[in-house]
Structure formats: structure tokens, C-alpha cells
């Protein structure tokens, strides 16, 4: 009952509304389609992920923008691999970012070569992309006010 009361206060009392942070974070899900342009050439376009069936690949792009008056640093973006989707090996990108992966729901992260899983018999083998549960980008640079950047990855719908 106490929790419910707190929720109601947070939701409906403006005095408790949180102020905006210093980063705006935006996530887009897109698919690639092949079209023929005016020159008659085939061209790959990205469109909002709408017609997605099992086996299709979705491109997730996370845009970050420093919207405050001060620069921000030590930016860490964490993205769980969406349920029913499988991370595409080698697809995670991000300028000036150290990219690591988790195979334990985000409890720990490491480079692909260091990720090991144990099978039912207790034998250890290198983790494969479909076993990744989370992706983490650690940006090495300071983001100045108004500056925008992006990181991305691809995943396939099971």
C-alpha cells in the first residue's frame, strides 16, 4: 500500500516530477530494404522496422546528445539484447568506445575472446554471439554540450 501511494504521488503531483538530465538518449529500430533508384541501380535503404518476421535483421541505433550546459564524461551505454533476438557477431559499433559484452544478464562484461560458457557437462567453450545477453559501450571521450554521437548493433529475430 505504501508503494502504491508513492507511485500515485510521483505520477500525479508535479512537485515530484524529475528535472531533465544532461543527456538525451534515443533508440531507433530499423530494417534494410533494397530499392531501385532513379538511375535504375539497386540501393539499400534503412526504414523504420515494421515488416519484421523471424530471420530478419534489425539495426538498433542509440543516439546520445549532451543537452546540459556542462560537458559529460565517462558515458556508459548498456543495451540488453532484446528478447527473441540474437546479436549479430561483430555488429556492435561506436566511435571512441570500448565495446564489451555480457553473457550473464549484465552482471559482468568482457571482450568476446574472454567470454566463456560451460556446457551441461561442465566443459568450457568460447561464448558465441547468440549467447550474448547485453552490450556495453564505454565512451572514452568527453561529450561537450550540444554534441551528439551514436552507437549501434544488429540483431536477428529468432
Amino acid at each position, binding site marked *: 500500500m505504501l*508503494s*502504491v501511494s508513492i*507511485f500515485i504521488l510521483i*505520477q500525479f503531483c508535479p512537485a515530484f516530477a*524529475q*528535472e*531533465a*538530465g*544532461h*543527456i*538525451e*538518449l*534515443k*533508440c*531507433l*529500430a530499423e530494417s534494410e530494404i533494397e530499392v531501385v533508384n532513379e538511375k535504375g541501380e539497386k540501393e539499400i535503404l534503412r526504414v*523504420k*522496422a*515494421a*515488416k*519484421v*518476421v*523471424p*530471420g530478419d535483421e*534489425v539495426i*538498433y541505433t*542509440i*543516439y*546520445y*546528445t549532451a*543537452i*546540459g550546459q*556542462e*560537458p*559529460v*564524461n*565517462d*558515458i*556508459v*551505454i*548498456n*543495451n*540488453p*539484447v*532484446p*528478447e*527473441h*533476438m540474437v546479436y549479430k557477431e561483430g555488429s556492435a559499433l561506436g566511435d571512441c568506445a570500448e565495446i564489451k559484452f555480457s553473457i550473464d*544478464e*549484465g552482471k559482468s562484461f568482457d571482450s568476446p575472446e574472454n567470454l566463456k560458457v560451460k556446457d551441461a557437462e561442465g566443459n568450457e567453450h568460447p561464448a558465441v554471439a547468440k549467447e550474448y*545477453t*547485453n552490450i556495453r559501450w564505454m565512451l572514452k571521450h568527453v561529450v561537450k554540450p550540444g554534441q551528439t554521437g551514436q552507437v549501434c548493433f544488429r540483431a536477428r*529475430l*529468432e
Partner: protein
Amino acid sequence: MGDKDILFGILIFFTKDEKGRKTVKPWNLFKKAAILALAFGLMMGMTKPVCAGGTHSGIQIGNMATVDYKMNDISQTPIESSPDGNSTPGIDGGESTTFVVDNKVNMTVITQDTAPVLVTPGGIGYYLTFLITNTGNTTQDYALSVNAVIQGGETKFNNQLDAFDMNNVRIRVDDGDGQYNDANDTADFIDELAPDANILVFIDANAPLTTKNGEYASYHLIATTHNGGALGLGALTEETEGADNADSVDIVFADANGTYDRRGDGQFSDQGDYKCVSSALIIIKTSEVISDPINGNLAPKRIPGAVIEYVTNIKNAPGAGAAADIQVSESLDYEITEGAITFDPDGYAEGYGIELTDSAGTITLTTLKDDEETGGDQGDFGGISGDNNTVTVTGISLDGGESAIIKFRVIIR
């Protein structure tokens, strides 16, 4: 997520799961309740969200990133992503970027016969067997149709050409027992076939009397996707055209081409064959002069008193079906009544006027007269009442490639 977690989620209107995923807006109580019910249903095995055909259609896939950062080296409250951009710190500040899994229409039709189904002219109830599998991600109905290969068209097996059509061709859907039973398998369409599920379908037909040994009749079975969701055959499933909607289930045809359909048309098909296997008897009758009263056995002539041997060779063609209970009857009534010949009752031994060489080469001499007067002997002459002056041989069985020879002798008067 355990039961305790769900109860806790109800009280505080959700925390993130262990992956930090959130797919609901915090203010939408009804949506949360529905999702809770769905989650509970999934736990209880009510639905199976992933199958061999992939994630079931209608499932919403959400994604949300979270950013941690510092300002002036002081850690700030994390911010979640949203499709339009979010800067409100804290849990529930963001919104998942979502799409709904679309309906991937896919199925296979595969003949279960490994060779043509053999039929006998005039026989009934011959069936071809096909397995229809829903390899898509949505429960579907399937209309079923049959296309008879035109005469001269290619068969499924043995590189043959279609030469005839079966009669009374019907489609029957298995009732679930895995075998054809005409009385029970009465449906002619497939109702509510879940993803990964399969069912047998039969083409039942009768063989016309006119078909000949070795001829083929070939058929395509075509399954066409219809909408599932209710008892009975739903409306024809049509691929979604134009702009797609991320929040609704669009329909995408992902089927390959079968033997009688195109790729991506919501149909699949395969082909099966009937092959006629009947006996193909060839009967050759010859005669030879054995002796005459003047020349004896040396260059005898067909003169009065000459003995003439009639030889009837019955051959079943190689590869033809077995022929059983062959009966050969040859009336000599006209010739005997007119006084032209007499039957030689002792042609092969005293009292044995008919010789039969069966398929194994065994020679049997049969009596002149049927002892039982019912045709019980294999060879008779005038044995059965009303069959006077008729040579009758019964009970001959020949597999394909086998032959039998009947001989009897007459004397020219």
C-alpha cells in the same frame, strides 16, 4: 521470473527484469495488467512464443538502452532511451523502441510415398499420402486442392509420363491417428494448424477399368494458406501490401515454390503418382500335325485320320502384375458337331487328353472327363454340364514374365 517477482511487480508497478528490459509505460495500468496476465500465461505454458518457424506473430519486441554518465566527475542518475529521445533520469523515464513480430506465412507439403501407389484396374480406395507442416509463426488454416497432371506430363517418380486419370478423386485430412481411414478422415481442409505442427492429408481415388499395366496417373496436392483463429476454414490469407505498421501484425509470404505453385504465393504443393499394375496376358495359339494314316510321324499332312495338336501359350508380360485363377476355355463344339474332327481322349496317355505345362515347367496330364462334374480338375473336356465339346483349363497363376502351355489333340475325320 518467479511468482514472488510477479507479485512484487504488481505492488510497485514493475521494476526492470534481470536484463533491465522494460516494455510498458508506467501510466498504463490496463496494459500492465494484460502483460502480467500474458507473462503468467507464458509461465503456465498457455502459449509458446518461439517455434521452429520463429518467434510467434503478434509478440512485441522492445528494446531500451540505458546511459550512465558523470558530470564534473560526479555520477548522475541513469537515463533510459525512448524512440523520440528521453532525457528524464531514472527508472521508467524512457520508453521501449518496439515493433510487432509479423506473420511469416510458410508451410511445406511433402509426399510420404517413396514410390508410385500401385493400383489394379477397377480397384477402389487407393490413396496418396502427404505431410503438411506449418513452418510459419502463426496458427493457420489451409485449403486443399488437387491438380491432375495432364496426360503426357511428367510424373513424380521414375521419369514417366502421365497416361490416365483416376476416378472419384477426393481429399481427406487425417483425424490425428496417423493413418488413413475413409470413415473417420472426412475433413477436406486443415483447421487451426499451429506453428511446427503437421498433419497427414490423403488423396483417395479409384482406378478405372480401362487403365493398362504400367500406366501412371499423377497428382499435385496444393495447400493454400487461410486465416486461422476460429473453427472452420478462415478467409484467404493475403499478403500485406503498401506501408507497414510497426504496431500491427503484417503478413509476409515466405513460402518456397512447390511442384505446382510459385515462391511467395502462400501456397505449397507436392506431387504423387498412381501406377497401374495389372496382368498383361498374351495368348498365342498354334497347331501342328502330329501324324497321319499314310505318312505316320514323318512329314504328316492334314488329311482325314491325321492327328492335330493345338498349343495355347499363355504369357504374362514381364513386370506385369500377377494373374491368378486364369481359366482358358476353347469350344470345339462346331467342328465336332459338323463332323470335322473328334477330340483325342488319349492324346498324351490312355485317358489323358490334355497336357498343361505350368509356369514352373511342370507337366500335368489331366483326365478326359471331370470326375466331379464341377470343373474340379484343372483340365477337362466337356466335363461341366452344358460345356460339351469344350476344352477347359482352370487354376493357372502367372506372375509377370511367366507362361503356361496347354496342349490337346484332335483327329480329322
